[in-house]
């Protein structure tokens, strides 16, 4: 049972810097039951409600990471429930613009994570295959940099590099190898 909640976005961000994704786990567990209860007002299965809640947490995380969300006028809970409600409407294929009340919270945010139908096309499947072949270190760098919005400095700390230049050159090398792998596939490999 999680009792302690983050009192502000600032507190959550600090915790995220210190303990990483465990901070997000905590947010996830803190509001889960309440959210599932809230979702019962809508015609949505519990399985879907779980799914929606996970996507909501991810959208929240992504926006914090990219810096789109750097100030909150409401509590984390109010904010999460706004995204969640939007997400439920989205799932129910209703017009999500009808939630005028929550619009203020959602403006300027990237809510791609709650659009569950985004999947890679053939070209991206090939890219994924190449990333798999690239090896775990490179894959990790690219995911941390592109998805988790880690800066070069943050990558240096996370992956124990000597300095930022080493990170930059390793990242460039990974991208170069990735390009070569893709070229190989295109040439019939």
């Amino acid at each position, binding site marked *: 049972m999680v009792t302690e909640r983050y009192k502000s976005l600032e507190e959550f961000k600090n915790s995220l810097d210190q303990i990483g*994704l465990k901070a997000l*786990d905590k947010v*996830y*567990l803190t509001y*889960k039951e309440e959210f599932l209860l809230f979702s019962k007002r809508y015609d949505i299965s519990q*399985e*879907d409600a*779980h*799914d929606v809640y*996970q*996507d909501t*947490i*991810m959208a929240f*995380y992504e926006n914090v990471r*990219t*810096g*789109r969300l750097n100030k909150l006028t409401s509590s984390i809970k109010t904010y999460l429930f706004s995204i969640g409600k939007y997400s439920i409407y989205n799932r129910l294929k209703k017009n999500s613009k009808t939630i005028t009340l929550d619009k203020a919270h959602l403006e300027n945010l990237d809510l791609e*994570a709650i*659009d*569950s*139908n*985004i*999947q*890679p*096309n*053939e*070209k*991206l*499947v090939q*890219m*994924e*295959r190449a*990333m*798999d*072949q*690239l*090896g*775990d270190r490179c*894959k990790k760098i*690219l*995911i*941390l*940099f*592109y*998805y*988790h*919005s880690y800066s070069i400095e943050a990558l240096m700390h996370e992956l124990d590099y000597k300095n930022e230049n080493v990170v930059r050159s390793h990242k*460039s090398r990974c*991208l170069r190898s*990735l*390009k070569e792998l*893709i070229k190989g596939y295109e040439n019939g490999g």
Partner: protein
Amino acid sequence: MKMEDKFPLIDAYLTGHISDKENQELNELRKIPEFEQEFQFRQDAFLTAKALGRRELKSRLQSLDQPAKVIRFRNWWALAAAMILLLLAVPFLFDHSPSDKLYAEFYSTLPNKIDPITRGESTKSELRPALIEYERANYTTARQLFEEKRELNPDVEVYIAITHLEEGQFNEAIKILQPISENSGARFRQEAKWYLALAHLGNSNKDQATALLQEISKSQSMYQNRAKELLAKLL
């Protein structure tokens, strides 16, 4: 100045950390075909890394929904009995838990490669309902839908096996994966072999898993690196 020196502008744009001035510069640079090519490549890498990161995070959150079970003891006798059972189980635990752990570490759901569902694109595929359920991690429903379309597309067999793996039904998965992994004409042969190795691992059948992993690590499989890594931990 070399063109490569300007590539970080592309990343700044993709990750949303670009100033207006830099954005203007980027737009100018994109008129150069070689630069535009690099832009397209990095954009694909960005989208893929994002999809992978998102998938990892999603399964992390999903795993939080299955907390470890807490056993409450009504009295000391029950506790003592439990401890004796635990002691008896020690050799068994030591024998089996490493492969379970490795299975959990190396297993990740096979992404939808049959019919990637792209935003805004309406695919009239017969398999679409099954794939949607699969992507939503509703594996039992997905399996039923896949099984209805078995005749239509042999590629779904691998996905049926994955729905079994997702629910810990290793023997069922092995039955399906074994023939595919030996069929040189199968589209998902590499995938079948890798997941077959994992299924054996999940079943605590280390020898069979090792044999398959050795084959994969010597082949040109996309799972070559992962197989090597897993072997190193297994042996």
